[in-house]
């Protein structure tokens, strides 16, 4: 234990949120008796201004050099209290919080047990904070250029926004032309604007911008470095391989459509008149809405949720199919007024601006809506001789419990969106993570929707999750704004929490090298030592746990700090404490 510690302990009542279950005074009394604790106080709202000032004053007047706050979750107010320490000139990392609200008073009823638990958590925090060290943040420069992966609607938007703000942009597109999946659509829901028009405007702006370098038939093969200082290797088919210096990367790699042959009963691939939504879009664009053998369809059946919201394929909603299906109702009815359209849906999700109105307008076209059970898609079979249609779609109608045969000449499958099959390669190359369905994960689902776990790498559009054009564009512009904010500053601060390798202890065993998901660990073959590039490190601590020489330290999560915490939580409560 460090002898020179002067710890200030503060317990928050949080009005009655904490105090109604946890006896704050008792916790205060017990903590006050621990070695190194210079003062222990309870207050009604520690996060309030007077609460923070209490900490600041005590640091100045009582010479505190460590602070423990027992209050809400550190995910809530750790930044607040760190600022209070900074205000008094104390390094913010000399703070430790004990979570006695979310993980104690809010979830327990018995005051005795809750108080005992709060004591243990506070005790652990006090023991831990003794081994805290002042940490300094690291600063680095920020290159103005940005690499945008994917030339769909999201990528185009990011690139155009940045280029028109006079920042250099490299737009990397794997295909030979820009536009992505939007380029495959005819009209868009709910206002029935032409997708072609939407794209043409963006592409024209992109091509006109002198700051924008469009690299078609190209792929990112390697990304090294860290935020503000990336080196990207881009390979162009039949062209040069370039090494680009960029400050940020925006991933807009989009989605791929669900393979409808996977759901056998839909008959896709077996019946030529069972087509996907993209195939219908193509026919609509060509103005030839007819069956495979060139007849005018009298009955069109649209099957929703193909691959989506089905536990066997993808559990999520692909978000655009309902509106697109409704759009087909309009398009078919306007092209063929005599045709009858049937929508076989799971739930009609016509959320968002204009959505419900669009649904109402479609239903007024006498579209027949039949609901089927999630996980029980309709079954398509050839019609019987004498029927006035080519196919019969059998559906277990959910609202009525009836098994219904729907006549159809054309069956349109609303194939859902799925993460690109090679999304894992992209994720590994740029160092971001994927969820179980393969979508890229954002930093925070609500508060940081375009950032990722790798600083300087952003995501926008459908590579993050299925979304419609307005949402993709909004996300793309958000990502562009994030990049511009950093470019404007010209430099970045790297979090002080990262792993460090002590070169005097490293044995060069290379055990850690492959463990780092961010390739922050490099091995110097001459010195036979590994080292961590701090700006790349995200402080997960996986290498620390693995280092057989004990040479890697996780700043702010050291072995010693955690050992102290373990002993701290058990010292009073364990049935066999020594």
């Amino acid at each position: 234990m460090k002898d020179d510690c002067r710890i200030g302990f503060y317990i928050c009542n949080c009005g009655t949120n904490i105090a109604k279950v946890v006896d704050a005074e008792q916790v205060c009394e017990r903590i006050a008796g621990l070695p190194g604790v210079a003062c222990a106080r309870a207050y009604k709202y520690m996060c309030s201004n007077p609460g923070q000032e209490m900490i600041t004053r005590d640091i100045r007047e009582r010479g505190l050099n460590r602070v423990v706050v027992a209050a809400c979750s550190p995910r809530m107010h750790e930044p607040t209290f760190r600022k209070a320490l900074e205000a008094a000139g104390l390094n913010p990392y000399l703070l430790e919080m004990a979570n006695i609200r979310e993980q104690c008073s809010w979830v327990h009823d018995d005051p005795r047990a809750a108080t005992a638990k709060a004591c243990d958590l506070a005790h652990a925090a006090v023991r831990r904070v003794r081994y805290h060290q002042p940490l300094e943040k690291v600063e680095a420069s920020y290159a103005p250029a940005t690499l945008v992966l994917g030339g769909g609607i999201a990528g185009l938007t990011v690139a155009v926004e940045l280029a028109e703000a006079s920042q250099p942009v490299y737009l990397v597109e794997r295909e030979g032309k820009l536009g992505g999946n939007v380029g495959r659509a005819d009209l868009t829901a709910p206002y029935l604007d032409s997708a072609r028009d939407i794209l043409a405007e963006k592409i024209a702006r992109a091509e006109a911008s002198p700051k924008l370098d469009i690299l078609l038939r190209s792929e990112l093969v390697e990304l090294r470095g860290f935020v503000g200082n990336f080196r990207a290797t881009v390979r162009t088919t039949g062209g040069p391989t370039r090494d680009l210096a960029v400050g940020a990367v925006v991933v807009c790699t989009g989605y791929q459509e669900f393979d409808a042959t996977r759901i056998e009963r839909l008959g896709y691939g077996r019946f030529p008149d069972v087509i996907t939504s993209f195939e219908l879009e193509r026919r609509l664009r060509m103005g030839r809405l007819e069956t495979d053998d060139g007849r005018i369809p009298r009955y069109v059946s649209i099957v929703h949720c193909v691959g989506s919201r089905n536990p066997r394929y993808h559990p999520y909603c692909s978000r655009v199919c309902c509106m697109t299906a409704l759009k087909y109702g309009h398009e078919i009815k306007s092209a063929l007024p005599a045709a009858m359209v049937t929508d076989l849906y799971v739930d009609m999700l016509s959320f968002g601006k204009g959505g419900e109105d669009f649904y109402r307008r479609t239903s007024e076209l006498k579209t027949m809506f039949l609901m089927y059970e999630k996980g029980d898609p309709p079954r398509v079979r050839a019609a019987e001789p004498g029927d006035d249609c080519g196919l019969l779609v059998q559906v277990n109608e959910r609202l009525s419990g009836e098994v219904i045969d729907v006549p159809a000449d054309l069956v349109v499958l609303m194939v859902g969106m799925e993460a690109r099959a090679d999304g894992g390669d992209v994720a590994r190359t740029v160092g971001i993570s994927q969820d179980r369905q393969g979508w890229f994960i954002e930093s925070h689902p609500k508060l940081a929707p375009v950032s990722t776990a790798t600083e300087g790498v952003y995501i926008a559009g459908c590579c993050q999750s299925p979304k419609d054009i307005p949402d993709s564009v909004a996300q793309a512009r958000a990502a562009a704004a994030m990049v511009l904010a950093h470019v404007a500053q010209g430099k970045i601060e790297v979090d002080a929490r990262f792993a460090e390798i002590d070169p005097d202890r490293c044995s060069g065993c290379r055990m850690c090298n492959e463990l780092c998901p961010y390739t922050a660990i490099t091995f110097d073959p001459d010195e036979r030592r590994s080292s961590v590039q701090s700006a790349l490190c995200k402080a997960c601590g996986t290498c620390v746990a693995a280092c057989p020489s004990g040479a890697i330290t996780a700043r702010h999560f050291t072995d010693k700090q955690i050992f102290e915490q373990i002993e701290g939580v058990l010292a009073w409560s364990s049935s066999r404490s020594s």
Partner: protein
Amino acid sequence: MAVRANPHLIEELEKYGAQDVVKCYHCGNCSATCPFSGGTYLFPRKSMRYLQMGLESRLRATLEPWLCYYCGECSDQCPREAEPGETMMSMRRWLTSRYDFTGISALFYRSWRAELIAIVVVALLTGIGLTIFGLTYGDLNVYDGEGAFLPAAAIHRFDWAMAIVLVILLGINCVRMWWFTVGGDRGVRVPLREYLKLAFLVPLHFFTQKRFRQCNEKRPWAVHLVLMFSYLTMLILIMFFLHYLQDGPAINWVAHGFGYAAALGLVGTAIYAVHGRIKKTETHYRHSHETDWIFLGLLALVSATGIIQHVLHRTGQPAAANVLYVAHMMGVVPMLVLEVPFSKWSHMAYRPLAMYLSALREKAVAVESAPADKRAAVAQTA
């Protein structure tokens, strides 16, 4: 076995007067507000759904439209203004055309012109026939007694002949209705005993309209009851006591009392309905199908000519009375021949029958869904 959907079903129903069916999104407010909806008969929502799903065969088998009296609560409560009440009405028209084996009903409902032409043709035939008959066997100047232009006994025989034809036509349609809803449904087995036990329901509902009374609004029931009893009274008078009304000069005040009351009822309710439909005073008067107007027109015509010819007769103007009598018959005959089996008036048979059939279905369903042990117990006692 799968049911075939008919995507054109809504379009077809629209020809019978359905409106805004597509607006319905099955929230169920209509069924919640309906005082009759419950148990195994959940409407109008279920029928609306059948309609939207294009399940023609299911819709044909349903009795639910007949259980509705169009109080209009559902249409008032509908958040989508989908007019479920009016849709139920149109379904009754459509069902009537399904029960009718001749196809005439379907023709009339879908084309008011066809109905009007049929009425005019029947009216003219009646007029011509009666005029020739009268001139051949009687004297235009004689209204009653010997040598009467249209003697009561002859009219009586004519009435009975017509009634037999009507009963046969309607009877066949009623059998078809039974077959569509109960008899032909393999899932429903009704013991013969129940048929007998519940048979009383037909006259009960016919005469009391007691179900109609359960609507929140009592006035439509009262108006309908007055109309129904007036009509019934008139029918009985005509079928059995025509000569009391026609013969003179002695006045049978009992028959006349009934006659006047019935005439008053008919005229009053006709005026009430016409006024209501013009001013759209009540929800069920908001939408008027052509057949509604034709029916009211005939009713008004028949009532008016009936009263006038009676007044002329009693004021001693036999020739004028006879002319009006022919005109009256030119209204009555089409009304009975066309309206009763093929159009709106057929509901006087279908409604009470529907009460009976729905009760039977409920009995059958109850047997089906009874717990196994209970069924075993029933078997043992049997």
